[in-house]
């Protein structure tokens, strides 16, 4: 697949390059059941991905001491917020044998699952629920969207290395072992989904805007779910499983409508001077969402980052993934590179290719830095939105040249509501991707039934000693 997918999207965005001010919100706060005591701001969890690994010498800081003052080239854009970041060397990826010929199909799909697909059912999606979805299962019912999935390129890459389903190439989020979660690539749709559509009069309406329609839709869906259950009973087992996916997704729509209703009721009460739940209102100005007209990748990625921040700021969701770029086939015309990212990563130390890979990495981290800085600028409670978040940037390969996975590059930004001890570079964390995810979810307050993927422990060095 190719490089510049923005063309398609542009065609449908034509003529709406206007700046859309942040739509009006009933309340900028988060919903917690009223009986819970004065809520601490919730921890938001965000993941952003870049494929193909990095140039190691330009990514890892020279030493823990120099980390903050003279960061490596790749992290330059994060310089002012490094105090909010944690770098850890020594996190290994999932060993990919017996899929040795499929490094790129697995870099993204193992990234948040920390395990391999089922080799006997490789042509289907058969992997595991991903860390973001585990979190969404726990906190998703508290917000109008359980989770937000974003991507820069459509997830239609066609390549099936080792007979693996094509979906593994371009999906990081799995709702269950068999359900890949598609991501949104159109900023306009994301905006609509988060905050409703603009009608001709310029008014925003959201699904189930009038409480009455929302309630009616919810009751209608109840009946449809009942019918689907009847149908399910008549079907063979494999088909029943499909119906389970259907039921799960429709129930989540119902919950979404319910969450919106809840907020609307609260807003109405608030308007009447009755405060139901105690909240920390955000006093930061609203983010302005500008949907770019041109083809500039950075503009496009930044609007996706803005939307992500906005979704967190308004507590529309607490969990997000953003596939900043997809493995294979993507190129970077904005940087003046005509070759694909992938072909450059097999650089064999060729200086020119190394330079390009380093520039592509820096470019991706810049977009992440943009998002982090924005989050830092938003006041929330006693601190900032970033203080109450865990934002992880990373790649599923250490080094695209050799497909190494021993030292995956990760940047964790945000203090996770005071759980993560940032501003440090840990040089020798002996852990794996599963350990990292397990620890992060722990920091976000998500209880786990079992370790994630290949995890064997928590990485305690990351956290504050309690």
């Amino acid at each position, binding site marked *: 697949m*190719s490089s510049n997918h923005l063309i398609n999207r542009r065609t449908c965005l034509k003529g709406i390059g206007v700046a859309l001010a942040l739509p009006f919100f009933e309340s900028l706060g988060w919903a917690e059941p009223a009986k819970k005591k004065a809520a601490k701001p919730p921890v938001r969890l965000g993941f952003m991905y870049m494929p193909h690994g990095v140039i190691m010498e330009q990514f890892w800081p020279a030493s823990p001491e120099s980390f903050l003052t003279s960061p490596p080239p790749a992290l330059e854009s994060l310089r002012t917020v490094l105090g909010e970041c944690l770098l850890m060397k020594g996190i290994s990826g999932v060993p990919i044998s017996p899929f040795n010929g499929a490094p790129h199909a697995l870099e993204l799909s193992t990234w948040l699952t920390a395990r391999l697909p089922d080799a006997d059912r490789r042509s289907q999606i058969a992997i595991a629920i991903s860390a973001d979805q585990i979190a969404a299962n726990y906190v998703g019912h508290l917000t109008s969207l359980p989770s937000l999935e974003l991507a820069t390129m459509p997830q239609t890459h066609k390549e099936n290395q080792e007979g693996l389903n094509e*979906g593994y190439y371009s999906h990081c989020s799995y709702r269950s072992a068999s359900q890949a979660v598609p991501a949104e690539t159109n900023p306009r749709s994301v905006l609509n989904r988060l905050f409703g559509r603009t009608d001709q009069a310029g008014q925003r309406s959201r699904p189930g805007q009038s409480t009455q329609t929302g309630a009616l839709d919810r009751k209608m*869906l109840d009946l449809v779910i009942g*019918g689907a259950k009847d149908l399910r009973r008549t079907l063979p087992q494999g088909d029943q499983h499909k119906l389970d996916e259907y039921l799960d997704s429709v129930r989540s729509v119902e919950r979404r409508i319910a969450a919106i209703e809840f907020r609307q009721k609260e807003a109405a009460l608030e308007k009447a001077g009755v405060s139901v739940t105690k909240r920390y209102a955000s006093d930061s100005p609203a983010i302005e969402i500008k949907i770019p007209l041109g083809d500039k990748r950075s503009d496009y990625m930044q609007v996706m980052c803005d939307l992500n921040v906005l979704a967190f700021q308004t507590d529309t969701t607490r969990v997000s993934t953003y596939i900043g770029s997809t493995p294979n086939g993507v190129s970077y015309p904005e940087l003046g590179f005509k070759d694909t990212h992938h072909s450059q990563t097999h650089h064999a130390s060729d200086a020119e290719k190394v330079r390009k890979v380093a520039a592509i990495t820096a470019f991706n981290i810049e977009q992440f830095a943009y998002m982090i800085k924005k989050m830092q600028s938003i006041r929330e409670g006693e601190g900032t939105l970033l203080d109450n978040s865990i934002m992880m940037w990373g790649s599923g390969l250490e080094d695209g040249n050799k497909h190494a996975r021993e030292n995956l590059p990760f940047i964790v930004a945000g203090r996770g509501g005071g759980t993560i001890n940032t501003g440090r570079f840990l040089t020798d964390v002996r852990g794996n991707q599963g350990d990292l995810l397990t620890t992060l979810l722990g920091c976000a307050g998500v209880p786990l039934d079992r370790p994630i993927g290949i995890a064997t422990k928590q990485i305690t060095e990351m956290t504050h000693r309690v």
Partner: protein
Amino acid sequence: MAVLLPGFALALAQPGPAQPASEGDAVALHAEAKKIFGAQVTPFLKSYCIKCHGSRPKGGINFQATLKDPGSPAFRGWWKQGLANVKAHDMPPDDAENQPTPEERQMFLDWIGQIKFLSPQDPGQFVIRRLTKVEYGNTLHDLFGVDPAITRELPDEVFGQGYLNTLSPLQSEQYLEIANAVVDRVLAPDGAPPTAVQVRLFGGPLAPGTYARAAARAVGRSLTRSAYRRPPSEAELDVLVGVFDLGREHQLGHAAALGLMLKAILVSPQFLYITPSGEVPAGSTIVPLDDYQLASRLSYLLWATMPDAELAALADSGKLHEPAILKEQVRRLLHAPRSRALFDGFGAQWLGLGELETKTFDTDKFPLMTADMRSAMYDEARLFFESIVRENRSAVTFVDSDYTFLNGTLAQLYGLEKTVTGPAMRKVTLTDANRGGILGMPGILATTSFPNRTSAVKRGVWVLEQVLGEHVPPAPPNVPALQKEDDAQVGTLTLRQRTELHRTDPTCANCHKILDPIGFGLENFDAIGRWRDAEEAGGAIDATGELPGGKRFSSPKELKAIIAARQPDLARNLTEKLLAYALCRPLEGYDEIVVDRLMESIAKDDYRMQTLITEIVTSYPFTQRRVQ
């Protein structure tokens, strides 16, 4: 590097022993393969393989596990690797104590060709399928006359074999929103006269003396017959009437309550998925698709939309599954303009043209690569594909033909801009035998190139995989791609000479000696498919090469002739790819036997496309489903 060879070696291996002509033969062949496995293969594995590939499996390959049920699809990959490595004498490794005799080695290789006979007759995994984004949009269009673009916010999807048949909350939300939008368009606003669609779907205003619920039930019955693509059960109608009641309880008028019912239909699994009509008898394992399901499967395959009235009527009368009728319907559907869906869904994917619209090209170097050019390239391939299908030509025509479709824009790449002008695509007879057929088609030559130059390797892989159906393993990691042209060391070499560097490295040579020559044979076409006699650097193009088996060529024309002569391979590849697309799953196990049989009938009719498609539609896995 032994491990990287398997697919190749398998692909180049000859098909196994004679194909079974009948069930009786199949039983005999099954028994024979099983006997040999017990008597000869098991001892072979035990002596030479299981020491390493046993319970602590090296390379993830465990032959101990295969002993019980060697025909299981789970082991297919291991047998393929085993075949390749044993054939190449890479296994057992040179330092192993025991080495098989040449006869033993041959016995093992022969037996692997017979594994397929161990697969029990099986239509393969069948799971109810969600409509793709495209199918869903077309179906809404057919039902309500709405623009299929109403679905544009749904995530894009891969069709066919790699189809992700899953559903996420995001999609469900969008289905609900789209359903709202549809209902808004169908229903006239309060007080306004009903829209035409509304009258068609809901009937006129409620006649005096009629009962609202009975009327709603009747509307539900007719709506679901088309929207569910099968008659509803009474229980399903109860649910819908329940939704109607709900609307009335919320003070909706009659039409608005029917609108709510319509919305419920549009978010129901019976609409979003192709579901069977009725339950299968308890205890059955394999059952035929009911006629409604078959009508949907056929219609979505060839038209990417719901069955039309004729198909629906045939399903109602229970006749659609009769082979003569089914065949006639295939012919009818293929001749209709809507069968372009088969190209948009399957053809474009097969030929790799899906990415043409968005692929990056170095526009400084190739200013001709405009949006118009891209779309003309796509249309050329589409019209060519459609002509072969509608005119019922041989599948070999894809490689070897004397015509194509051009407009003024595209004619520039053919050097025919003087004779072909204007924006309209038209059929053009070609006199240059280097052109004509997919190997010399600009869209394909462009998508198998880098943004700024050709790639003999990519083209070679494309021809092997997409045209001949062979499997090319990925390059091993840590192999440098070709250096840049200005690199001092290799700067004086032509692209061909540099590509040939692959073959000086034994790691690369095994595959590249097969891949590269095919690509070299197409080097006369530049990265956007124009003819050239010299490279950019000035060196003359050398399009000579030799394929395994000693077939030599010196121009695209000759390469084309060699490939066109491999009729059975071309046709089989197309059959396999289309069958996998039709079934929305990769082929495995018993499918191989199915394809063997299809190929017999298809070959008898000179590989004609309509025959090929008809054989697929009437095939065992297309018409049957496994329910356990």
